């Protein structure tokens, strides 16, 4: 089951504005045995533009999973999430929130908006890596993702 799944890389859209967090998340995801293809958007607008330009001929693939920061310039993660969930062709893509915010209002609100799960960025490099690994392992080896 797992081996058949790992033949094609999983497409991830990482929406994150902090360069250090981008770097760390990218390194962690790419060092795993699970094959991934990662697109990066540095704010909600860039992510929204990417999602709207998905097409068979331009190499822009529909992500299997979104990893979404909340506090970002231009369009923040809450607004992007809301937009995604109103679009029938995008709404089934699981969205993992990965943020420094542990405000209860953010947690409740993003679950209400349809986030699949809410994960806080822990302090410390090693802990951060563990959390990213846990996300990757759970979503790509345990969960059945929507078909492409």
């Amino acid at each position, binding site marked *: 089951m797992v081996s058949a799944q790992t033949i094609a890389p999983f497409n991830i859209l990482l929406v994150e504005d902090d360069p250090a967090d981008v770097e760390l998340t990218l390194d962690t995801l790419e060092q795993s045995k699970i094959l991934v293809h990662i697109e990066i958007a540095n704010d909600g607008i860039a992510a929204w533009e990417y999602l709207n330009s998905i097409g068979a001929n331009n190499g822009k693939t529909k992500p299997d999973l979104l990893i979404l920061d909340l506090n970002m310039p231009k369009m923040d993660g809450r607004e992007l999430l809301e937009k995604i969930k109103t679009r029938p062709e995008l709404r089934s893509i699981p969205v993992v929130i990965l943020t420094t915010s542990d405000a209860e209002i953010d947690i409740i609100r993003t*679950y209400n908006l349809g986030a699949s799960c809410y994960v806080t960025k822990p302090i410390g490099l090693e802990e951060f890596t563990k959390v990213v690994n846990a996300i990757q392992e759970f979503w790509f080896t345990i969960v059945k993702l929507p078909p492409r």
Partner: protein
Amino acid sequence: METSKQLQPIKVLLVEDDEADVELIRETLLDSKISLKLDIVNDGVDAMRYLSQKDKFSDAMLPDIVILDLNLPRKDGREVIIEMKSEPHLMNIPVVVLTTSDAETDIVRMYDAGVNCYVTKPFGLEQFQNVVKAVEKFWMTVVKLPEMK
């Protein structure tokens, strides 16, 4: 806030009709260091009664997470999801589907309906236990669950 939350056991509602599956999931969940309070109902009608604190469930507390089978007697899991996700006080409770169905229509339909993740029951006891453990570990140690009032 963090510490007060972790002192409380995580409240899990398991909605599952198959007795053998209930037993296996129950044993696997409880056989871990994670402190949780597990309630079990066997069909969708009871699941909705539990979540609405009706009838014999008047003392039930809202769960922090629901583990939901799809093929259930009386009211199936698909209907439960749709009802939960349209109720403002239930829509933010994470729902993990755990089912034998790997039909694409179910997978797409359930994600569209707002299920938080879709997991299939694998064949084999050990694989099944591993999947339950993985669900427990991810949802109860990595994820921030909403605080249920």
